[in-house]
């Protein structure tokens, strides 16, 4: 499998008035095409920062990030916008749907920034929301909203899906369903999925597990016995 992402000695400092926080102190890892990569670590370890850099939401202070053969670490604002539009689909804990757009519109709205996309209705069918096209987000349950957010991310047909605590706001059953959806998309469409979580119980569903501690990669573990989400309990 080919590497689609390469983090090379990535450093990220946050400067406030009188404090310098070294969040990432030299991170190296790769992401393989089509895998499910789980990034775990305790709060403040830097896992979300890794995802944000990968998602083009922030730029690293130092080091390089090669995505699909291009170094995105020196991108300017406009290039980063285009990068976010073309390459990544990001899913947050808060679903961040646009309240004034219907389910279908939310999904197509995400795809409007990109040239080649998937069919929104097909994807909504895949996530089980074909009956809710015309609903507004506020009328949906949390799980349904998260599924709309996933559909929005996937309809863009990005290089990879980035999920930051995707189930943080959901109950057990709904969380499982959402993760199952991500797993299915990974298998059926061969999408690379990167999930940031503090929930170690999810580890068995991943191809690889990246553990982050104090701004450094502690270890990258290959998961030989992959288990489907349906078989997991926590």
């Amino acid at each position: 499998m080919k590497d689609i992402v390469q983090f090379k000695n990535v450093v990220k400092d946050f400067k406030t008035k009188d404090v310098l926080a070294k969040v990432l102190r030299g991170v190296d890892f790769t992401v393989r095409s089509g895998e499910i990569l789980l990034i775990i670590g305790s709060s403040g370890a830097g896992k979300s920062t890794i995802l944000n850099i990968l998602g083009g939401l922030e730029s690293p202070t130092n080091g390089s990030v090669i995505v699909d053969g291009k170094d995105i670490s020196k991108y300017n604002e406009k290039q980063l916008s285009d990068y976010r539009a073309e390459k990544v689909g990001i899913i947050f804990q808060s679903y961040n749907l646009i309240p004034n757009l219907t389910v279908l519109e939310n999904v197509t709205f995400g795809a409007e920034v990109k040239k080649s996309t998937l069919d929104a209705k097909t994807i909504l069918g895949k996530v089980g929301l074909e009956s809710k096209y015309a609903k507004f987000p506020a009328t949906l349950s949390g799980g349904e909203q998260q599924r709309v957010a996933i559909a929005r991310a996937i309809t863009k047909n990005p290089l990879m899906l980035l999920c930051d605590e995707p189930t943080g706001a959901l109950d057990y059953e709904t969380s499982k369903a959402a993760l199952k959806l991500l797993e299915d998309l990974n298998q059926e469409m061969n999408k690379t999925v990167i999930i940031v979580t503090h929930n170690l119980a999810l580890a068995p569903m991943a191809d690889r597990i990246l553990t982050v501690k104090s701004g450094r990669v502690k270890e990258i573990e290959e998961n030989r016995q992959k288990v489907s989400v349906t078989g997991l309990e926590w």
Partner: protein
Amino acid sequence: MNLLKKLFRDVWEAKGQFLAIILAILLGSAVLTGLSSASQLLREYTDNYYSEYNLADIWMYYSSITSEDTESISDIEGVEDYELRFTFQQTLLDKTLQVYSFDENTKINRLFNVDGTLPENPFEIAIDYEFALANDLSLGEDISYIVDGTTIEYTITAFIENPEYVIKLPNDGNGFPEHEIYGVAYVHYSTIPELSALIGIPVTYDEIIVTLKEGLDANAIIREIEKTVPNEAYLLGYTREQNSGYSMLSGDIEQYESLGYIFPVVFYLVAALMTYIAMRRIIDSQKIQIGIMKALGVKKAKIMAHYILFPVLPCTIGSFVGGIIGSIALPEFLIKYMFAETYDLPGITTKVFLSLVIPAIIISTGLGVLAAHFSCHKTLKLSASSAMRPFLPKSGKKILLERVAPIWNNFSGSTRIVYRNIFCNKKRAFMSCVGVVGSVALMMTAFAMKDSTALLIEQTYNDIYRYDGIVNFSYFTSDHGNITLTDVKSIPVPENTEVLYVPMLNFEVKDENKTTLGTVVVLDHNSDFYRSVDSNMNEITIPDNGIIISKRLAESHGLSIGDELEVKLTDSNYGGKSFTGTITAISEQYITQDIYCTSGFLEQMDIEPLALTMLVNLRGEATIDDIKDFYDNEKAVSSVVSLAEQKESIENYTEVMNSLVAILVVAAMLLSFSVIYNISLINLLERRTTLATMKVLGYRKNKIAKVFEYENMFLTMFGVMIGIPLGFLLMKAVFDASATDEKSFPYFISTLSIILSCGLAVLFTFISNLPIRRKIKNINMTETLKLIE
């Protein structure tokens, strides 16, 4: 104490909105206190000027009168004092001086000495300061004038002003002062016998000026005097209300008072709505904090007091600062530049009436309290627990536009966001428009003031007066006694001219409330020189069986077509004759109070009109100066008036008004900017997550900004559409408030001005959108999106 700290933090966080509220309130308060200070100042000044220099209450004119004739006046109850004067006009071609006699004992209409020493000897003259300035005269200079062909030389000893002439309008003028060609002068009484010896005119008084005790009906006293004093020589009498200076000045002061109410209403209304919107946003975003305060046991009144302070603070600061600025700057500007251009108010100084700032502060603070109350009383009523529950985002809704599938389906997601935003929050959207509505209406009114005056000038000088000059003949004597038209026509006419002899008779029209002085223009047929037009600018034919009156005369006496009108002629050669005519038409003209009729009509009324006026149209290369030169030594010609010069004097006056227009436009611009900027800021705050989401999805900064700009533009367009009709209403209200008996302004605004007002509103929106882009750039995606409130 802690709440106070929180308040300051809230203010700091919302500083843009805070400043915008201050700005709008500041503008309204500046206009309110400025205009009321200006009118207060003028009232105090004029009251003082009139009483200090003892302005007469009654002026009465006779062809001649002696002091014995008038002795009985002091017996009339209510008469405080009276004096007799000798009056005459002196002319040096187109410059006319209205001259009065006075001496050391003069107590009524005393002279305000601007410079020099008042005349004490024969042929010493005091000249009005403005005339002296305009004609470059200096103290000690000798000026010579021609009276009935004899040259008379005066020495200027003083420059003066007089309360009976706060405005100096030439008789054949257009309602605006022309200092260069018309002035007032006073000679010592001892001049009169010597003058009489020189030119052989009889030394008789011809004017009585009377002062009354307070609160008496001057018109009734005039009737008393008419009875007491020999009647055959009586020409006319009038009160202060017909003194053009007195009435125009008090009319203008009233106009400033009414404008002082109309304009601030617009500013305050916009400011109040803006404050309400800003408060709603703050209360909504602090719903949970309010819940926490309640849960902690903070009393409702205390929470209320805390939130009331937020709008009250900018309203109070804005009104205080605006009030001070307005009361200092506006009277200074209005009096020095506007009033001084028209009126002669010697020794006027501006001062600041701090007490007039108080109403502005009370109104503004009251608006702040109301805005706070309406924005937070609902939230405050909630129980602590329900207030602490986060605000559920308002769900989207289908809007009407979606039914039009061909349009809706072609809209991109961002366009759909805009339309749903607008139409799901109609109330908010409407309020957002208010700023634009207000500024469009203000700008239209300002531009209309300019357009209307231009139309007035255009109409007066192109449609009605279609001649280039007027030659006035004095009532000269001829070999065979009373002069006739043949005598007038025997005076040579310059080459390259077309002329028309037109009788212009001074008249007086009276009803219970009012006396109006004007001119009867006698035209035998419609001519190239003079037209009467109806409201559609079509020419009206002057009938033989009735009279046409001008619109101002009709309006000031409530006359309409078909009414009978009694007209008294006041020129001495008509011996005080009257006639009654049926009004057959009203002439659409905005200045002067004229009556038009034919000589045939007057003959039926047993009046022989004599043309002492010749209208001149220049042909070929002739100029008005040629006419003036031609008549330089013609003793029968009293003056030559150039229409072009008259027109110029009005145009000068309108230039001053243009600066007022500029002030209004700037105020409208600031108002519009403050509102649109404020609304955009609130929009931005409320939709931070949507914007951050768009950024995450990969929308470029400019594209996101466009969504905002599109929405603001849509609202601006909507505001413009409401603003146009409201602009017409505001314009009418302002013009009605500005109309006086002498002049009114046509309801007119050019298409260009409407387009310009709308265009400027759009431009302001565009400018206030500029800082928004920077704010969008600064939205932090990760922080905004992880924050779940």
